[in-house]
């Protein structure tokens, strides 16, 4: 699927602000599931853009604006070609959970079984995970059951949470948006020692107005597999992946600081079109 994405973030400040330092994670990766054809990042006021790859290999662009300004506009335009992916079928040979222990010795997985900024590993969560998986031994089946469970347990309600809502609040109130669904799923997996990580990206629906969040779980012998708990399904060509992290904290699309007034407004607009 060929997709054009425009992602615009606009800040308006009540009074001019200055010394603004920002990092953005907006550039999707290229991998076997998608090819990034082009990527353009524009910022106003004009800045010098620098970039690097972070610890999780995400593309990071960064810039600073020292002089006073009362608006900041960040726009990324990209073209990506997503490929069909086989997904994991139910007839796959089961992988027992005992293999997780040796898999965890691989150092790339350590971070994804620990607590992180928005996800903690608590006994109550573990109990929920145990109930949801009911003694299932196959890693993949566990992950699926947990995903179904999240879908049942949490209801999608936009504006019921905010960007810094922690997973434990979501578990209490049982509503949220895809960011929260992903955090809950990750928390449940981690209590069972299944490595799980957070994925930031886009979902090509006609009504898209924001980025999307889902998860990847690690199945020994297969690798990282994507699961979308908000829609209770594996991902397909309608998904564009930007990057991964332990949770939202590691892949926030835009984050930064500045000196000035706290009164400001942010508008985000995402437009996705299929071409050809």
């Amino acid at each position, binding site marked *: 699927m060929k997709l054009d994405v425009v992602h615009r*973030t606009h*800040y308006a400040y009540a*009074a*001019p*602000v*200055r010394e*603004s330092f*920002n990092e953005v994670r907006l550039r999707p990766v290229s991998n076997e599931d998608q090819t990034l054809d082009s990527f353009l990042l524009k910022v106003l006021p004009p800045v010098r853009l620098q970039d690097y790859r972070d610890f999780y290999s995400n593309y990071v662009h960064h810039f600073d604006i*020292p*002089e*006073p300004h009362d608006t900041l506009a960040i726009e990324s335009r990209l073209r990506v070609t997503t490929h069909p992916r086989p997904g994991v079928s139910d007839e796959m040979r089961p992988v027992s959970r005992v293999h997780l222990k040796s898999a965890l010795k691989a150092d790339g997985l350590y971070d994804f079984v620990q607590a992180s900024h928005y996800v903690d590993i608590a006994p109550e969560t573990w109990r929920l995970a145990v109930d949801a998986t009911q003694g299932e031994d196959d890693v993949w089946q566990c992950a699926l059951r947990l995903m179904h469970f999240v879908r049942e347990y949490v209801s*999608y309600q*936009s504006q019921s*949470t*905010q*960007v*810094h809502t922690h997973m434990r609040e979501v578990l209490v109130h049982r509503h949220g*948006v*895809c*960011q929260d669904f*992903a955090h809950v799923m990750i928390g449940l997996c981690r209590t069972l020692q299944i490595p799980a990580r957070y994925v*930031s990206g886009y*979902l090509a*629906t006609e*009504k*898209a*107005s*924001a*980025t*999307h*969040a889902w998860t990847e779980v690690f199945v020994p012998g297969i690798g990282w597999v994507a699961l979308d708990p*908000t*829609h209770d399904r594996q991902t397909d060509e309608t998904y564009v992946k930007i990057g991964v992290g332990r949770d*939202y904290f590691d892949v*926030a*699309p*835009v*984050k*930064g*600081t*500045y*000196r*000035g*007034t*706290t009164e*400001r407004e*942010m508008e*985000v607009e995402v437009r996705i079109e299929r071409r050809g």
Partner: protein
Amino acid sequence: MLSRVANSLYWMSRYIERAENVARILEVNLQLLLDFRSLDDSDLHDYWMPVIQCTGDQDAFLVRHQRATAAGVAEFMVFRQENPNSIVSSICQARENARMVRDQITVETWEELNRLYLFVLSAAARQMWLDSPTDFFNEIKRSSLQLVGLSHATHIHNEGWWFTQVGRHIERADKTSRILDMRHHTLPPRGLPGAATQTTALEWSAILRSCSAWDAFKSIYGAEVNPRNVAEMLLLNEDFPRSVRFCVDRLNEALRRISGASSQRFSNEAEKLSGRLAASLQFSTIEEVFETGLHAHLDRLQVNLNAIGDALFHTYIFRAFDTGNYESFVQQEEQQQQAAAF
């Protein structure tokens, strides 16, 4: 030098000067009180209110005390830390500023200021105050003068030193003008006052003594203590170190030494205002001042000094693209990730 450091040096010397001036004001007025045996309560109140107004603290005082008495006023202006302009508060703030720039001041200066700080907070200071307020005030003055002397004789006269000069002379000019203004309610709003009574002479002598100007005054005007002469001495005299004109001249010079501008020009707002003020003091006569009214004139002078202080702040402490105070950082708002509803 670091803007923040310039700021601290400026305030350090301003607060030391403030402490000294408050000590002077109080000492003289306590002495003077002894000469007025027959003041009743309301007279006392009228007597002391101008003293409190000298430091601009009348509102803070009246919140706590209904009437001004000697004990109440003295306690308020010496020890109370809720009064940001009390002697103890000023010394604490001076020391705090010094502490933040310890690498810029000499060891002797720090030790003397630290010693003064430990002293005013100690029980020994309280005891000295009870036994003899004069001794207490002398201690404050002595220490302040030692700090001034150390500053002159042992600090390198670099940019930072000139900032301390600015602070000291702005404060001294301001406080001298307020001391001068203390008896303004006994003066007519405009025009030279009439012949001085004995009370007037005593009161205006007290004003001179507050500024250590008594001997200098006598050498110029003999024994003729009257408002006109005293005002001329403290406002327009170009040679007496505590006169407003002298202080503004030094202030003007210090500003130019900092920026490197010549005395014929100004390179920033602060210099423009200080140059203008110096010129007006240079080219005024005391009769002209009384024509417009001494109090009105002194009021305007204080406003001008404040404006110079503000302009200084904006020129040196905040660079061109800073638009306000040292605000702390604010995080950009972050966007929640939410697929469109389906």
